[in-house]
């Protein structure tokens, strides 16, 4: 198995990288939606981030990666409380996936061979405490989207089917990617993503050449290439770990809260999730920079990420949402 492409070797795409690091620092921000052209390193970035993150401690054999034996669901029948480290889970949700596979279902295998009624955990269980990655999220079947909406909101997967009545924790960072030309996302799902990023393939030839050069070096000698970037990756990992610890101590004074509220009002974003995400993202950014309090500079940086997908769409406005957010940020935080 070749090691994944190192996160620190990804050229450009600063917004995407920032958004992913912020959700790694504070998973409570929600998820990241990456919309844009093909072949711009969306999947690469998700997989690279997972490899970069510090491993999680989980009870041995626990299907939902619970941290302590007490958190293990009863149905899993875990007797041990020995824990071990495992890499942060990144679960791919393929487009044609069935409901069974997502939420879990009766374990047919055991039912048939041993006549036992047991639960076979699905992808949501595996993604607990990690990442759930949906490529082409805009093409996902509606009934799967509905399921995800509910679970992403409650952090708990409730299965009521085939005589099973089971619940387990399913807290994950939802990462979706897609190409808006092939279909758009329902606003309800959009809103569930904490941050959104629009990626374009780099327009600068020098940057493109650098991408190809690095990718080529990686494909020819993956181990060597990964080793060469190991230090930089380790630095990012260290930064994330420190930022996670610092997160609770970041100050946010009333002025910043007022700024958040005014920004959201001026943009007319629905609900209060916009303010909350904006604040959390700004706090994570402050933590990553080692600052002690959130400043307007932090807000400016994260506002397009946190708000651009929450605007009421004005079909007659040709400018992109990100541009509208930046414009408003300039006037409100002037």
């Amino acid at each position, binding site marked *: 198995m*070749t090691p994944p492409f190192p996160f620190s070797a990804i050229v450009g795409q600063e917004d995407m990288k920032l958004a992913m690091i912020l959700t790694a620092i504070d998973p409570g921000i929600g998820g990241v939606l990456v919309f844009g*052209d*093909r*072949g*711009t*390193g969306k*999947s690469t970035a998700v997989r690279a981030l997972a490899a970069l993150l510090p491993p999680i401690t989980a009870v041995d054999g626990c299907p939902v990666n619970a941290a302590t034996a007490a958190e293990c669901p009863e149905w899993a029948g875990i007797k041990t409380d020995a824990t071990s480290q495992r890499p942060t889970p990144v679960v*791919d949700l*393929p*487009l*044609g*996936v*069935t*409901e069974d*596979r997502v939420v879990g*279902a*009766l374990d*047919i*295998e055991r*039912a*048939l*061979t041993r*006549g*036992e*009624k047991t639960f076979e955990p699905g992808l949501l269980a595996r993604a607990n405490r990690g990442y759930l990655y949906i*490529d*082409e999220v805009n*093409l996902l079947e*509606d*009934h799967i989207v509905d399921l995800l909406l509910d679970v992403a909101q409650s952090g708990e997967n409730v299965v009521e*089917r*085939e005589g099973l009545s089971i619940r387990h924790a399913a807290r994950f960072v939802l990462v979706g990617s897609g*190409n*808006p*030309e*092939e*279909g*758009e996302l*329902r*606003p*309800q799902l959009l809103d569930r993503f904490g941050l959104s990023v629009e990626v*374009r*393939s*780099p327009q600068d*030839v*020098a940057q*493109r*050449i650098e*991408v*190809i*050069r690095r*990718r*080529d070096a990686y*494909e020819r000698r993956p181990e060597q290439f990964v080793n060469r970037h190991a230090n930089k990756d380790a630095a990012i990992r260290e930064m994330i770990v420190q930022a996670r610890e610092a997160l609770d101590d970041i100050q946010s004074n009333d002025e910043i809260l007022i700024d958040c509220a005014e920004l959201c009002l001026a943009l007319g974003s629905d609900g209060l999730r916009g303010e909350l995400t904006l604040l959390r993202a700004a706090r994570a950014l402050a933590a990553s920079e080692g600052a002690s309090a959130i400043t307007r500079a932090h807000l400016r940086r994260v506002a397009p990420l946190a708000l651009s997908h929450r605007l009421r*769409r*004005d*079909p*007659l406005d*040709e400018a992109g949402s990100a541009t509208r957010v930046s414009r408003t940020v300039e006037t409100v935080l002037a």
Partner: protein
Amino acid sequence: MTERSWHHAYLALQLLAIDPVHLGGAVIRMRAQPARDAVLAAYEATVPMRKIPLNITDEQLFGGVDLAATLAAGHVVRGQGLFAEPNGAILPMAERCPPDLAAKLAQLMDQSLIKGLLAIDEGIEAAEAVPDSLFDRIAFCIAPEGRMPADWTVLAQDPSGPKVPNKQAIQQLSELAARFGIASLRAPLFALQAARAHALLYGRAHLTAPDIEIAATLVYPQRATQLPEAEEEQGSDDAAHQEPDQTQNETKERTMLDTDMLIDAVRTLLPAGMIERLGRSKTAHAAKGNGAGRKTRSNRRGRPLPSRPGKLGGGARIDLIGTLRAAAPWQPIRRKTQPGRKELIIRPSDIRVRRYHQHSDRLLIFSVDASGSAAMARLGEAKGAIEMLLADAYASRDHVALISFRGTKADTLLNPTRSLVQTKRQLAGLPGGGGTPLAAGLQSAMQLAAQSQSHGMTPTIIVLTDGRANVALDGTPGRGAATQDATAIAQAIRAQGTDALIIDTGNRPEPALRDLSGTLAGTYIALPRADAARVSAAVGAAVRA
């Protein structure tokens, strides 16, 4: 040209056989014919080639419990997925490949489990093509033209040329891709790998200029979205950028020459019709991108509901897995009561039948009168109304299509879509003026409605006009024949059972239009000086009433 395309096809297959992992695969765009078999036979894979039917299940693809074998053996038998070992793959009817299968195959390709995918594309029109997510991961597109030459499998002599260092090759290929407007960064990577494979083919360890040229001509033409600007000062810029440690001046000059040569080489191989499409470069991309996604949405068979205990027959379909699940827990007990039986014991009470919750999407077909002086305003407002309706299309599940009629005929400007982005691109500039071929507009709308109905959608026709028909179906002017034709089509629409709505945008309500809406059994709304907001509100109110 045609012979050359055959030689290129052979070369592409040879290169793919050398490095199937990095080159991804090849799209073979040919109809079923002996020549295609010859092309397929020319590919000498080093791994077994597995055929992937479009209806392949996840169990077959990724592996899982083999239910039939498990039941027979009495213990768990796991099936291996087709790609548990890296294998080659052949995807027949690739133009019909649903997006979810494409996504799964793309996933397997990203993990290098598919070593070389031959996607056989029998598409006729440009829109019928391999899904973009696969196409982007495949280096070559093989579409040889004309008669197959006898010597097409003969490789040319090793084309000699100056040696090119790696760094320069990367730079050249990236620049070239950028100038042809190829956004995906996979393309230059493919070209680089193809160049390396080409060098290997001739037993060389270094790249030469012909390697690069051939790689570019094999990988780029099908992906180009723009023509490079003619004589840009790119060359001199490059020279300035080039690092001073490039030792020989000669090398530099050759590089600059090469870039132009490369552009010409790729340009001559651009697919037919490409130049015309480039003229409308904005829509060219969209036309390629839609296709598959839209079809699955409209072909939705309904949202599956949990299966229910029930009786078979009467059109009910058995949910086999559900049935087995229901029966499974009881097996030990049932065996005790019937010790002789070894097989699975299923009682009628275990039978589960499938249920679907059907809801079809609404399609709003706007047929807009683009004739006369008010044409531009009316089209503009219709466009605005469409965009507003699409903006909340999620909530109401509306798809929208736009037909405009003017002069002697009707044109479909926007095929049924839910994508606001696509709509904006396609409705950028709309022509107007001329007579009012109302019948033609109605006819196009009717055809579209019938088509969408067969796709499981519920169409509604919305006609925006301000006047009476004055051009008949055959394009001849004259009120009498025109009105007759319009009435006839209206009756057909009514017979077809399609809802219709006529919005009269004239300053004075037109009685003929009211009559027509009577024939259509539709709604008539007079909206003098209608603007986008009012039209969209009126349509919304009428169709959701």
